[in-house]
């Protein structure tokens, strides 16, 4: 059963979930949990909050699978990015504002071990300034760089026109370049 489910596309699994198939739900969660945790973490910068947001997103999907419209020609992942990102924004509203000291602490556990010390310093500097960007610019950078979505897909997730997304990316990169000029 599990191997049969592994062969199905996300959209086919969603069809089964609409019929309350919990094995299909388990397969979908296992397949994508890391990917969605990653965007949640990069939106909230807190492991527990990110886990909560992803969990609430998936449980919403399980409780109300009819949110997914199979007739719309949208990929599951593109659609679910919207759910998770909105969940992150909602959860963040309820929380205290981010403490600036929190944002200055940048863990380097996900940087490749073979990256040079100089590069590590640069990546950490990018991270520090990235966290200070406006929310919409951060989301655009997250989707296009960290999640590897195409500009069209990212625009779709954010509900923007392609030009608007490109403008956000451009502004984010200009700000980062200005801040990092000493490198």
């Amino acid at each position, binding site marked *: 059963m599990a191997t049969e489910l592994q062969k199905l596309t996300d959209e086919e699994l969603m069809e089964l979930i609409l019929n309350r198939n919990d094995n299909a739900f388990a397969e979908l969660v296992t397949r994508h949990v890391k990917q969605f945790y990653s965007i949640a973490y990069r939106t909230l910068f807190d492991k527990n909050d990110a886990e909560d947001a992803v969990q609430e997103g998936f449980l919403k999907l399980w409780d109300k699978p009819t949110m997914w419209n199979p007739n719309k020609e949208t990929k599951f992942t593109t659609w679910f990015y919207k759910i998770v990102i909105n969940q992150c924004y909602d959860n963040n509203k309820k929380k205290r504002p981010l403490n600036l000291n929190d944002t200055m602490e940048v863990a380097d556990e996900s940087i490749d071990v073979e990256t040079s010390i100089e590069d590590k310093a640069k990546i950490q500097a990018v991270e520090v300034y990235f966290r200070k960007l406006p929310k919409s610019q951060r989301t655009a950078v997250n989707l296009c760089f960290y999640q590897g979505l195409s500009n069209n897909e990212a625009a779709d997730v954010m509900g923007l026109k392609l030009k608007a997304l490109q403008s956000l990316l451009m502004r984010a990169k200009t700000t980062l*370049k200005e801040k990092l000029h000493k490198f």
Partner: protein
Amino acid sequence: MNDEILDRLLNARKFEPANDNLAYRIITKAKNRSWMNDQVSIWDLVKGFLSPKQAFAMAIALIVGLYVGGMLTQSATADSEYQVSSFLEINGDPL
């Protein structure tokens, strides 16, 4: 800093490591919710057949029934114990 270097730096951090238990936790919670929803649907089914007054009357009848049933069983047990002890008194223990 040029675009190429910035792109490389932005691409250098792809994924944050997720907790291995996260998927398991989500799946378990969803399954538990299904179980709870099933309980709710049984209650909805009962509510569909009975008005709140009828459901209350049924619950009282059930409690009284269980009480009376318990009393009768207790009395029947006492009777049979009395009959056995009387038989043994009159006829002696056959063993």
